[in-house]
């Protein structure tokens, strides 16, 4: 029998903001944009804000209507990533097999490690304590024989929860839950299930495997059949290598100025290049992404002969791809690098060596002070033109 632990930070972005700004404590805090932002959506909100019916992915406009006195902030992704790194650095102390799910969530395969603790509860508490000591933040932990149940468990007593599901408790816990709690059952599927009288997970037990296959197909049918019985054989898979690194920005208003887009590319490139170099990686391909006002989205790529990690190569490639497009009003622009390698083929003519050194020096300065302490003039163009 496997022992899987799922860790999920409680209202992560909001919790980091409250940690850094104690005056937000106890207030409805909404992260995703200022109150007058017309396009933003809620990325996280504090538990106080959830009482007003605000939830993530809700347009800011709607959240502002529900809770006009709430604290609305755009969020500081870099700070959240910094805390995320601290949290993810803790997991290997507990298990060698860690699958990071997102910035604030992970599966740990604890099979065999449970004997180091007095109980499964003590094991969960020990991780929660370690996270709290390191970051000052609370996490909810679920422990169960598989990934599906572990993730379900961590959600049962949020925030600051700790839930263990033992094999003999599976049916007691699962049966009364709504079917929407099953992994892979979204709103649409839930409505479909409700339509034929299946509301609770326990209701699914009345159906045989062939019956579910007939109703829901050979893939989703068995999925429902096994999950309803708490069976899930997915392994905890340690992170696959990063395949690409990218950043994008959605504009409050559609943009048509080439100079402004070029300046934005300069900023995005500094974020992309920074992450590339922080991971000690090199890339060979640059991809430019543009979403036009009508949501038509295009991507254009160029692959270089030699791998690179400097901002200049990324920027010049992205700009030359942008120059080839006949621009219509742009809603979103993004830059991604891919074809990542840990090793770099050196060039005979030393073309990017100076650019690489320059980027490294800028990184050192930005790391010592704060990101953006030193930047290239090209990233400032949009302010001059506005």
């Amino acid at each position, binding site marked *: 029998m496997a022992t899987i632990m799922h860790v999920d930070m409680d209202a992560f972005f909001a919790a980091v903001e409250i940690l850094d700004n104690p005056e937000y404590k106890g207030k409805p805090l909404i992260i995703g944009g200022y109150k007058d932002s017309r396009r933003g959506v809620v990325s996280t909100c504090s538990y106080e804000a959830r009482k007003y019916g605000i939830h993530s992915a809700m347009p800011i406009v709607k959240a502002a209507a529900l809770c006009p006195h709430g604290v609305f902030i755009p969020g500081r992704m870099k700070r959240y990533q910094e805390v995320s790194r601290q949290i993810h650095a803790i997991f290997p102390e507990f298990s060698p097999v860690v699958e990071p799910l997102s910035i604030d969530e992970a599966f740990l395969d604890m099979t065999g490690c449970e004997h180091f603790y007095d109980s499964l509860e003590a094991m969960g508490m020990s991780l929660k304590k370690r996270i709290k000591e390191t970051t000052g933040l609370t996490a909810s932990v679920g422990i169960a024989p598989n990934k599906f149940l572990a993730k379900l468990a961590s959600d049962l007593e949020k925030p600051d929860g700790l839930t263990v599901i033992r094999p003999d408790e599976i049916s007691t816990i699962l049966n009364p839950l709504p079917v929407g709690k099953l992994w892979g059952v979204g709103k649409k599927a839930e409505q479909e299930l409700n339509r034929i009288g299946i509301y609770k997970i326990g209701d699914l037990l009345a159906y045989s495997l062939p019956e579910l296959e007939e109703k829901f197909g050979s893939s989703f049918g068995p999925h429902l059949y096994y999950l309803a019985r708490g069976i899930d054989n997915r392994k905890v898979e340690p992170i696959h290598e990063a395949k690409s690194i990218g950043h994008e920005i959605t504009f409050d208003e559609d943009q048509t100025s080439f100079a402004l887009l070029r300046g934005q590319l300069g900023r995005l490139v500094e974020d992309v290049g920074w992450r590339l170099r922080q991971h000690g990686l090199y890339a060979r391909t640059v991809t430019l992404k543009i979403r036009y006002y009508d949501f038509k989205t295009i991507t254009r790529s*160029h*692959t*270089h*002969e*030699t791998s690179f990690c400097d901002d200049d190569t990324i920027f010049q*490639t992205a700009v*030359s791809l942008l120059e080839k497009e006949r621009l219509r009003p742009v809603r979103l622009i993004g830059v991604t690098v891919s074809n990542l*390698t*840990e*090793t*770099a*083929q*050196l*060039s*005979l*003519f030393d*073309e990017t060596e100076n650019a690489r050194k320059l980027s490294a020096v800028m990184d050192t300065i930005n790391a010592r002070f704060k990101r953006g302490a030193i930047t290239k003039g090209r990233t400032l163009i949009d302010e001059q033109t506005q």
Partner: protein
Amino acid sequence: MHFQIDSTALTEGVRLVERAVSTSSTLQILSGIQLQVDRNRLTLTANNLEISVKTETECTTIAPGTAILDGKLFSALVRKLPAGPVIFEKRDNQVIITAGTTEFTLNELLGDEFPAPPICDQKIMSLTDYELSKLAHSTLFCVSSDDQRPILQGVLFEISDGELKVVATDSNRLAYAKAEVPFLTTDTMEVIVPGKNINELLRCLPMDETLIDVYYGENQLAFRFNDTVFTTRLIDGKFPNYRPVLYTEQEITIVMNRQHLLHAIERAALFDRKGTQPVIIQVTDGVLELGMQTELGRSVEQFNVEHTGGNGKSAYSPRFILDMLKATDADQVMFKFEPGPRQALIRPAEHNNHLYILMPIRI
């Protein structure tokens, strides 16, 4: 226009010119093959502005004239004709082709004037098809495929010190081949020929010790052999200065059997499914060790080699080394390298007419 020609001669002529038929639709006339008939000669021409090929062949002329036919259709039809005489007759804007009991009627391509091949009348040199082919095959594999760097998509043809030098580089590696050309009619020349056009030229060469006359003019290079003229556009710009790159003073030198090294690197490369992992080359007191480690596993091979200079190790792309070892037919190859960000050299052990330079991989 009215003439008769043997299908074998016609097929050979069309095989040569069809390489210059344009496949893009921007200018329709460029997708045509031009037929010109005068006193007992048929001239076939195609010109896609990258390359043009013009070839002459004997025919029995009844009435001279000119026609332009769709190149793709015409060459496909000609290839399928039965052996024997073929008769062409133009009526109005159609050409009727009769071979035995087979008859086709092709509509002429009309409209624009067919672009005449550029005139290249400055004689540069003469060399045999074998010599030209060897120089090209020794270097072409290093041509860049990066369309943002058009100059590196070309091959440098340089005449200096009474020799022809051919150089190609994608900036990570460089191939250099030189030959003494017996019929040199100019002292210095530097032109950059698109690599893919050289590839097309190689497919047209008869490969029977035919002497090829090379001419320059109108920023084009023309290769004349038998009754054929192959003309290519040249790339504008300055080729990177390759001379400092031809560094040969590396600290470590080994000499070994080319096939042994080739097969060992091929085996190591099997572990490099992504094509990004380096092969580690280490030489210690006359023993060469090749190592490769990836997520699939690792390979280690050792060889006794002729070794001069110090001990040391460095890392290289196995693909680059394989390309270089395959481009030469030498029995023994010399591999010179040193640790650090310095280029390595691979060449035939017996002569230095072919030099391959490659940069290491930083690990």
